[in-house]
């Protein structure tokens, strides 16, 4: 029984290490997230979008291009942003979320 507990504990430990080891590689790939925002047609109404976007966990800064209808989120080091969170906040800001893409890091 003791041996079984030791083996199980070892396996759980290995699993934890494996999960933690995966996260940094994901964040290295996605330093920026580009979000197409439909309905974004006026600069004066983009403030709410910026405010909602900066509140998303993991977002470091926000850039909005009204002409292109594009919002670019800079991701904090070691963080991952959930696409569902982005869509939810864009809707809360009064716009319609479009395609989300991950451009190459600068």
């Amino acid at each position: 029984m003791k041996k079984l507990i030791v083996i199980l504990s070892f396996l759980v430990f290995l699993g934890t290490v494996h999960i933690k080891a995966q996260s940094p590689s994901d964040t290295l790939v996605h330093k920026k997230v580009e979000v197409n925002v439909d309905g974004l047609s006026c600069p004066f109404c983009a403030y709410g979008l910026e405010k909602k976007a900066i509140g998303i966990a993991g977002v470091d800064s926000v850039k909005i291009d009204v002409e292109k209808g594009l919002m670019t989120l800079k991701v904090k080091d070691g963080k991952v942003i959930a696409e569902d969170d982005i869509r939810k906040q864009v809707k809360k800001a009064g716009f319609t979320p479009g395609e989300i893409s991950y451009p190459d890091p600068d």
Partner: protein
Amino acid sequence: MVKTHNFPIFHILVFIGSILFLISGIRAQGPPVYVQTPILLGLDGGGVRTFGKLIKKGNVNIYLQPVVVPYNITAKFQMGGIAPFISKSVNEMEAQTGLGDMALFAKYVFFQKDGKGKTFRVLARVKQSFPTGKTNVTPAIGTGSYQTLTGLVAGYVTTKFGVYGDFGYNYTSAGLPDNLVYDFGFSVPLLPQQYPPNQINLSLEFTGNYIFGKSSNNFFVAPAIQYIAGRRVLFETGVQLPLIEDVEPGQKTKFMVLLGTRILIF
């Protein structure tokens, strides 16, 4: 009753507006100054709006300073209040000043169609005014009547142009005639568009008010200019000129000038 039709002014302003529209290029624009907007966001969502409006009408001078505070419950549902300060004098006599008729309002966007760089939205609105302004003084600065305005506001805004329109029926009490308000307009920017905004917008708007019972129609053209100085503040000014004014000759509008600001606080 005298009808005034200043069609030369109308044609000149429409011509100027058309030229501005054509030369403005492909850019976004700001909110209209006189017409309602269906976009309850940014400066029209969580800001305080106030303006001074000077009205010279026959032998009456009116200075109006409303403070409008909207608050977004959600991006589609807004509630707010209006507190107008009024100063009114007749025949250069001592002016009566104080709080006019206060109002509460609610707006709900029930249709929204978004596309890349464009949006079409329609909202329903209701405004309830209360007879808080004094009526036991001369001249009165309140109407003495409860008024309920219900109406629709629509707008098609793209990065190339924006068109706005609203109409509403105003139910009144205390024997005052009901009236129909109808407004429409568009605005264009003069500076390259950017965010945070730094823009000068020109707009050409039309405001109308048909009074039932009196069968009186008043229709004004209102060119306006607006400066958006960053995310949180906007300055605007405009003038309303009569195109049709069904009033007694001594009550005809000489001018109406507006100077105001909107400050984002929420």
